[in-house]
């Protein structure tokens, strides 16, 4: 074999190996590496953008607990449906103690508010102003969540008594609010 032919074969082999390596291995791996780099950069960016989320979650969780405690603290101020009679009985006892006559006491159908329900109770009362005031004071500052919505009193100067009607809304337990009246 002539030396020139050996050189040609050797050169061809060299070029072949180099080409095979580049096209078969290096180029593909370089492209894959670049793609991985880009993906990782994107993921890192996403992670950086959401860096403070865990702290935010912890902060929110720590805020929810005291709010829930506050809400639970109000649990006792609501009455259950079957406790309305007890509330009215207690009210009648208070009225008797303060010297107010209860001429009418009529609970209505439960009404829905945003998250709660309340029962409107119509009352007709008769008595001296200080006694009525004491009775209303008991509603406004009482344990149960009750709001005097309407109040109308007419005085009788000769007898020094007032006669009137009021509607108070007695709020029901939140879990009862989910039930339709």
């Amino acid at each position, binding site marked *: 074999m002539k030396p020139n032919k050996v050189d040609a074969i050797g050169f061809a082999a060299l070029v072949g190996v180099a080409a095979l390596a580049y096209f078969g291995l290096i180029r593909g*791996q370089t492209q894959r590496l670049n793609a*991985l780099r880009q993906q*990782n950069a994107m993921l890192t960016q996403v*992670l950086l953008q959401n860096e403070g989320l865990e702290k935010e979650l912890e902060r929110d*969780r720590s805020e929810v607990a005291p709010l829930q405690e506050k809400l639970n603290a109000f649990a006792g101020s609501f009455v259950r449906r079957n406790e309305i009679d007890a509330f009215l009985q207690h009210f009648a006892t208070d009225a008797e103690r303060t010297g107010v006559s209860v001429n009418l006491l009529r609970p209505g159908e439960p009404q829905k*508010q945003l*998250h709660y329900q309340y029962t409107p109770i119509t009352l007709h009362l008769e008595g001296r102003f200080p006694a009525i005031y004491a009775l*209303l004071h008991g509603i*406004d500052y009482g344990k149960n969540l009750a709001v005097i*919505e309407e109040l109308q009193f007419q005085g009788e100067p000769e007898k020094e008594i007032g006669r009137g009607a009021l509607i108070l809304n007695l709020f029901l337990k939140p879990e009862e609010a989910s039930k339709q009246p």
Partner: protein
Amino acid sequence: MKQINLIPADYKQSQYVRRRAITWIAFVLAVAAMVSSIGLNLNAKITRMQREQAQLQSKTEAIDDVKADLQVVAVEKKAICEKLQEIYAVQRRRTSTPILHEIAAACNDKVFLNQVSFAGDRAAPVQPAPAGSGTASSAAEPPATRRITLKGYALTNLDLTQFVSMLSASTLLNEVNMKFWRQEPVRELKLIGFEIECFPRTGP
């Protein structure tokens, strides 16, 4: 010029060709080794990147979980805040006794009321807040439209003026309006009959 042949006599053409071929093979092998080392290096980098990517993906998945938790907590917090705001709003409406107290204090034994009425503050119809819009304040308490009407008699105009002034100065009442006043005979006395209208002050 005389040519000197330095090639040994026993050195043959075939030996020369073999050596040249060996040199080329060594060269090709060296290039192959170099390329292989580059390939191995790239492979190591790819493996490292893949491991890194797996870690980043697991972190991203954890972030997704955190986001979901955050959303749940936010919804829970919003619901609790709405409920609390409603309770506070209801509590703020428990103003009847303090207002009666203010009115009684303003009467000062020279003004006599024969009619007191608080009316008009009916609960608003239920309007559930649209999902995802607004805060608890959007589901606010119904507008305070409770009207307080006072009818009675005063001994003199001055007493009536003082009564109205004291009501106006009250922190619990708003817009104290004298609807009318006139002199009226009551039990052989000339008293000042009046009607006053005012509104409970609402606020946080």
